[in-house]
């Protein structure tokens, strides 16, 4: 059977190539894997994305938090990498994502961050480095498996694909209700993170041929495939 | 490629200049680059004219002019003729420059055709040649040269025979007769100046002035 099938142009990126591309993407733009409130991320830079603190009455400035996601690895259908029983086996047109997520909050009970400029004028608060003075981070790291599908979208570089997370499973987290809570939280976070990563079609084909997509993305044969015309 | 210009002021390949000498005497002259005669004083060559013996027959003496760069010499530096005879100068070298015969008498020379002289020109290219007097005289005329196109040997032979037939234009008292002639490519027209006041036979395109149009106007009337 021909590669192009009923179309004229075929482009596919194998999961190994996709992992290489994602590694390069997150290496160049690590802020897509690093988020935090001002207590952890003083400003949005290429390294981190600043978010709002969790607002809560009686806590001036809110609760500082951060989420650090390890560079994910993907495995396209058919399944090559092991998955937790809840996600096994990997379904058709699906890929799995494996990563580790670290969630931190600031446990400084005095919460005097709002007054810091007056009391500590010489503190180093510039850049994206977290304030060092009163931050007492408490962190929690969890291994995450996710199942996602790919869909076509647009990007500043033209037609692109992105990944939509369908399901998530955490490893060895107890009790079950807590696991469910964290899964719900991380599903939303990972879904948002990956949806913002848009991979243009020329990147997926390393610039080989122009492709006006008609069919795909399809996940099969350990790769993501697109079909179309010149 | 040699030029084929209708201009009696300088004699080129296919042209000839002839002068009759009506009185006995020694006539000295030079042959110089065309139109430069008035800048040269030397008169190294001689036409010795003896008194005639009462014969009414004009004899023609043809001199061949050789050209060596810008230097011209006749094949005989001195000739002796009888009064009333004609001397003709021509250069058969297509690579030669145009020349002028400059005599020591006003009537003797091709720069200004005065009395009992002539200029012949073989027309190598088709077209209508309106000739004028470059010295602002009123005499002029037209020579229409028609090309002959043939691809047969017979046609070619007919053409070659026609080439031996010349056409005469007589110029006297400021008039040319006939003023208009029709010939074919390669044929020769002989302009015989019986009496003139120093004219030239010059293609009007060379002098910039109004071309001769006398007969043409008459035709249009």
């Amino acid at each position, binding site marked *: 059977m021909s590669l192009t099938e009923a179309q004229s142009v075929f482009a596919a990126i194998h999961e190994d190539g996709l992992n290489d591309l994602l590694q390069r993407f997150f290496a*160049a733009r690590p802020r897509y894997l690093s988020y935090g409130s001002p207590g952890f991320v003083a400003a949005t830079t290429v390294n981190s994305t600043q978010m709002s603190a969790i607002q809560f009455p009686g806590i001036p400035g809110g609760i500082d938090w951060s989420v650090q996601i390890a560079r994910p690895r993907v495995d396209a259908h058919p399944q090559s990498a092991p998955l937790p029983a809840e996600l096994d086996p990997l379904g058709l047109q699906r890929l799995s994502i494996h990563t580790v997520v670290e969630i931190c909050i600031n446990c400084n009970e005095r919460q005097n961050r709002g007054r810091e400029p007056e009391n500590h004028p010489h503190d180093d608060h510039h850049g994206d480095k977290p304030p060092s003075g009163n931050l007492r981070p408490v962190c929690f790291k969890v291994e995450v498996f996710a199942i996602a599908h790919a869909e076509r979208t647009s990007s500043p570089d033209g037609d692109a694909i992105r990944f939509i997370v369908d399901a998530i499973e955490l490893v060895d987290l107890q009790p079950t209700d807590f696991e469910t809570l964290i899964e719900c939280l991380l599903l939303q976070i990972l879904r948002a993170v990956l949806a913002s990563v848009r991979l243009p079609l020329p990147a997926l*084909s390393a610039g080989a041929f122009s492709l006006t997509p008609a069919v795909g993305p399809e996940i099969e044969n350990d790769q993501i495939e697109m079909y179309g015309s010149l | 490629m040699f030029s084929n210009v209708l201009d009696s002021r300088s004699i080129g390949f296919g042209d000839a200049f002839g002068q009759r000498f009506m009185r006995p005497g020694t006539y000295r002259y030079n042959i110089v680059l065309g139109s430069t005669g008035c800048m040269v004083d030397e008169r190294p060559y001689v036409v010795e004219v003896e008194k005639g013996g009462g014969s009414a027959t004009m004899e023609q003496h043809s001199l061949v002019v050789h050209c060596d760069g810008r230097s011209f010499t006749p094949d005989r530096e001195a000739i002796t003729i009888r009064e009333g005879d004609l001397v003709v100068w021509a250069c058969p070298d297509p690579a030669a420059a145009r020349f002028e015969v400059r005599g020591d008498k006003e009537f003797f020379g091709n720069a200004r055709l005065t009395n009992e002289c002539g200029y012949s020109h073989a027309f190598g290219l088709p077209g209508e040649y309106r000739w004028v007097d470059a010295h602002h005289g009123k005499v002029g005329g037209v020579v229409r040269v028609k090309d002959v196109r043939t691809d047969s040997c017979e046609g070619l032979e007919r053409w070659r025979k026609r080439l031996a037939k010349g056409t005469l234009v007589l110029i006297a008292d400021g008039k040319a007769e006939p003023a208009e002639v029709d010939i074919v490519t390669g044929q020769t027209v002989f302009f015989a100046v019986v009496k003139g006041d120093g004219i030239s036979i010059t293609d009007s395109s060379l002098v910039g002035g109004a071309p001769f149009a006398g007969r043409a106007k008459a035709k249009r009337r």
Partner: protein
Amino acid sequence: MDITAAIDEPAADQLLDTAIGLISLPPASGAGTLGPFFASYNASASLSSGDVDLIAPSTIRIQDFRLDWNLGFSFGFDLSSFLPDFCIPQVCIDIPCVGRVCTPGFCVNWPTVSVPVSFSDFVKVTADFGISITQTGGVWRVEAVVQGTPNIQFGLVTAGLLAAISLAITPILLAVPFIGPLLAIAVNAIIAAIGIAGVTGLLGPILTPFVSGLRIPIYDQPVTFEALAATSAIDPAVFVTIDDVKAIITSTNEDELVLTIDIS
């Protein structure tokens, strides 16, 4: 292989048509023979599309691609080589009351003339191309490279060029004094001397270099490939390294040109 990209034959036809149309052929100049004559020439040419036939495992046959060319050349010849010596005979005229005057006869040495010719036409060429993969100067290139020396069929071009030469000669010879009725003889003799062999002998060495060694770009990307362009200071460009490129033609239920690319 990390990346696989393929196009079928119609897409290859479209791709190569576009690529061929973008090829800028450098003009050529030099000297050659036109039958018995030497000609100096300037030539320019452009290419346009043909029909692509992908032949596994590594041949791209392009049928009837078109080479449009403009040729300006000039050649000189001694007219004496084609026309016999010719003499205007002595002409004698009877002048009334004067007598008989004769002008001297003279012989015409036919000149050497130079004829400039300008001619445009096209030829269709069929050629087999191989696939060349190179990485030089930090750029990966996949090109279709013509194999051997394509045979150019000149066909009616020769007659057209002979007619153009004839048209160019005529006005120049018309300016030769006394050629008159000999013009047609001269033109016919010159055209006969050149002949079809003379025209192809001139055109072949001029036009063949335009297509021999022809390279049609298929893939042209830097080793450090920009996968995503920078959009802001916090979203810089993303580069991947192209480690290897391979190209092959496969034949299954249809013929395809397949590129496989390794990245890291």
